[in-house]
């Protein structure tokens, strides 16, 4: 499976993502934001970081960069596009995903492990995933997902909510919501479920000695579903 990671000025999880993808057998290439086109890919990843210093709004400047037109065309033709953290923020700013990531409710930068519940498995990312609750890592200041009531209803009606923050036992409430996100939302899909944006970083959970391996499950599952 061929993948491309797009690098923006200020991306800082691009190389971690490269390491993770290659570890599980993706043929990954790094693509600079100022390039016109993307090499032939089955998956495009917008990595985490602070593209353009988070100026104006997180992800807003990156969402207008040269490469983005190719990303949007790729997504509209059904290609898999994954945005992690700042990548999720960029995807909402392009309009590929609904809503916006606002500043965390308590104005703090959060860097910690969290549990997320997989809400939908009828998609190429989570189909046949062996676990329902994953332990992943978050590190963000703007992860407080917000959208209008109409948009929320359509996300719920179409099963576009991908993952939600929860406790280790799956409890979803205010105490297991780190950033104030509406309905504990940690990640969502587009209508066709080929575009996934989420705040947690699976690429930080791929080594049993360093962290945990729930991220490994995530990447392996994408590969398994591609075969």
């Amino acid at each position, binding site marked *: 499976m061929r993948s491309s990671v797009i690098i923006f000025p200020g991306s800082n999880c691009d190389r971690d993502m490269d390491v993770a993808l290659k570890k599980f057998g993706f043929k990954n290439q790094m693509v600079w934001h100022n390039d016109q086109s993307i090499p032939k890919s089955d998956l495009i990843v917008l990595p985490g970081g602070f593209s353009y210093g988070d100026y104006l709004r997180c992800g807003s400047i990156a969402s207008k960069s040269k490469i983005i037109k190719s990303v949007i065309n790729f997504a509209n033709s059904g290609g898999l596009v994954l945005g992690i953290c700042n990548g999720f923020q960029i995807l909402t*700013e392009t309009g590929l995903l609904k809503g*916006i990531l606002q500043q965390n*409710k308590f*104005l703090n930068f959060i860097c910690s492990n969290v549990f997320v519940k997989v809400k939908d498995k009828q998609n190429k990312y989570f189909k046949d995933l062996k676990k329902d609750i994953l332990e992943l890592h978050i590190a963000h200041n703007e992860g407080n997902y*917000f959208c*209008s009531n109409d948009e929320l209803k359509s996300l719920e009606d179409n099963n576009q909510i991908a993952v939600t923050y929860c406790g280790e036992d799956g409890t979803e409430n205010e105490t297991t919501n780190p950033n104030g996100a509406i309905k504990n939302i940690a990640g969502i899909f587009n209508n066709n479920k080929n575009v996934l944006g989420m705040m947690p970083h699976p690429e930080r959970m791929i080594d049993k000695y360093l962290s945990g391996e729930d991220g490994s499950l995530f990447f392996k599952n994408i590969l398994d579903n591609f075969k």
Partner: protein
Amino acid sequence: MKIKVIVTLKNGVLDPQGKAIQQTLNGMNFGNVEDVRQGKYFEIEVKEKDEKKAKSLVDDMCKKLLANLVIEDYKIV
């Protein structure tokens, strides 16, 4: 020509920074501060002499970049 734009959060959208500022002001004995909303202010120099045209250009900029209409309103002043 210089065009000025104010971008603010829509009514009903949580503004934690505004809230923190309000609470700080209250703590500084500005007890009659009931609410604070924080926004952004832009001064945009447009190479255009016709004010109407300049404002219409800036309006387009607001829709496409300066404001995110999911949570923000803008006003050209």
